[in-house]
């Protein structure tokens, strides 16, 4: 102890209130919605546990789950996510402006490419859907000893992708997603076993060559830095309600909350098409 015991206590330096704590700008969707301060606290905890700064270490490695998060530092991390979201949003708006303003005849090849991509996608989906229907019919036929009575064969609704300029049809989804870019494969996700799960991934990259849903494989969805069991039951099919894929994910009972992710591959083309990210809780 370097301070004499009889020394008069010094008054603490006053900390005047800052005129401004921050720019008070917030951008929706800027930080991952993992709870109120999920990402900020996760980051602060990870930082405190890792403490990679070269200054002397204090004590043993901490357990991130039991660390008290420094609120000031957590607030800075939260602010950092806000800054990033705001910057990205500004960039998007600027890009949209430029795109609209700069449209001219030189863009025509891109339009043709986009139209061709849409046509190929349409043909691909129709072909796959046709095979699916045939398969369903064969399965039903196999299960019968004699021909079924007229009218008893059930065929699901034909997924008719909308072409540009076609007459509008009632949208099956209450809140339809914006049309995916021509190089994207739209994705809808259905969860079994969890009411709080939601998908962060909305599209995958479109493989160069046609691919059937069964050719897609997803790695087990894991919660990084946790011993939570992985989610392994993930299947892909054509979305019967909209152009694109439908993933069905079974979430085991009691699965811990958090952000789970896994790589999605196209088996035949040895191609990474994206990452499946879901949030639970």
């Amino acid at each position: 102890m370097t301070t004499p015991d009889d020394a008069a206590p010094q008054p603490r330096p006053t900390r005047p209130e800052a005129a401004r704590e921050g720019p008070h700008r917030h951008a929706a969707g800027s930080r991952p919605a993992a709870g109120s301060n999920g990402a900020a606290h996760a980051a602060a905890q990870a930082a405190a546990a890792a403490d990679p700064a070269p200054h002397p270490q204090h004590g043993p490695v901490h357990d991130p789950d039991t660390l008290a998060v420094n609120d000031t530092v957590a607030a800075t991390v939260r602010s950092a996510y806000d800054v990033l979201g705001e910057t990205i949003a500004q960039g998007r708006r600027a890009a949209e402006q430029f795109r609209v303003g700069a449209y001219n005849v030189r863009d025509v090849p891109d339009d043709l490419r986009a139209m061709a991509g849409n046509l190929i996608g349409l043909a691909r989906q129709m072909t796959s859907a046709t095979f699916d229907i045939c398969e369903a019919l064969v399965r039903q036929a196999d299960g019968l000893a004699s021909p079924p009575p007229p009218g008893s064969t059930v065929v699901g609704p034909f997924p008719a992708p909308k072409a540009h300029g076609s007459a509008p049809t009632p949208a099956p989804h209450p809140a339809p997603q914006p049309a995916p870019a021509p190089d994207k494969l739209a994705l809808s996700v259905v969860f079994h076993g969890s009411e709080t799960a939601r998908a962060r991934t909305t599209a995958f990259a479109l493989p160069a060559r046609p691919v059937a849903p069964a050719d897609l494989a997803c790695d087990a969805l894991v919660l990084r830095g946790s011993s939570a069991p992985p989610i392994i039951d993930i299947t892909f099919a054509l979305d019967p309600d909209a152009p694109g894929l439908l993933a069905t994910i079974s979430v085991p009972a009691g699965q811990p909350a958090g952000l789970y992710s896994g790589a999605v591959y196209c088996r035949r083309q040895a191609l990474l098409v994206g990452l499946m990210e879901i949030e639970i809780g």
Partner: protein
Amino acid sequence: MTVEGALLQRYGAATRAEVARYLAAPAPSPFLDEMLADYPQRGGKMLRPAICLANAAVFGQRSGGEPMPEAVRAAAAIEMLHNALLIHDDVQDGSELRRGRPTLHALHGVPLAINAGDALLFAAFAPLIDAVRPLGGDVIRQVMDVTATMARQTAEGQALELGWRDRNVTDLAEADYLRMALKKTAWMGMIWPAQLGLIIGSRGRLDPEMVVRFGYFLGLAFQIEDDLRNLSEDPGYGKEQNGDLAEAKRTLMLIHVRRQCDAAERARLDAFLGLSREARRENDVLWLAGLMHERGSIDHARAVAAAMAGAAEHEFAAVYGALPPSEERTFLHGLIRWVFDRA
């Protein structure tokens, strides 16, 4: 040598060879070509090219082998563009040393140095275009999009830093600093190289926004640690201790200490910041450095840098965590700790 060090060395060698190839002039122009090659020949950490090459390998599923030729060209473009901006930065900051030697403008004068910077900037587009031309119109479009965004963000970041200093803006919040560091450091240094690697590796099939968050937090940790080192006894090769204070650079520590000051200290600090660099006295610089220690600004910045590294860990897991283990993935993950351990 660590896995990360070996990879950095290999990537650095491949990038340097490609830069030299593009800068080799059959008939060197006087007062130009020699200057273009000067900064690239002085070496450098080659961090940016390595980020590009590692991302190309990871997202192109070509781990472990030689780097993709297209990605090496993109890496050369990144290194050339980085050096072009360094030439201009040195002029703007009035710096005297770069990588242990006199800056280009100190050697040849400001007009020739700016001209060389301009030429190197445009020369960088040759390897970039050569890199993406074989990959088709869509990939070219994506690469130009992310490059234009990077150019805009970088210019905005530099404008913020210079504007704050030249107009003596003092009422800054931490979020202002984070915004400046995102634009000035992270976008060009980490985000853009990762995006180029991702686009080239995946042949344009993956969304370049996937890697923005990891690059952002890595860049923030890097910048804050860089600012902290400037105040230490070992500020880095060719740098002067407390040089950022003498330049009145708006760092996280400066913003923090200004909020912790009492009225008299704040008045002295604002008066100090309002002086020209030549008029700032050594004893004031030392007073400010001491105040930052006393008021916990150094410790606060250390904690924030560590938290940004934690956020980078979080984002790394979300993007790269699900990919198969590889030397390149290990390298990218190792960058988080490298920010603090680098020599």
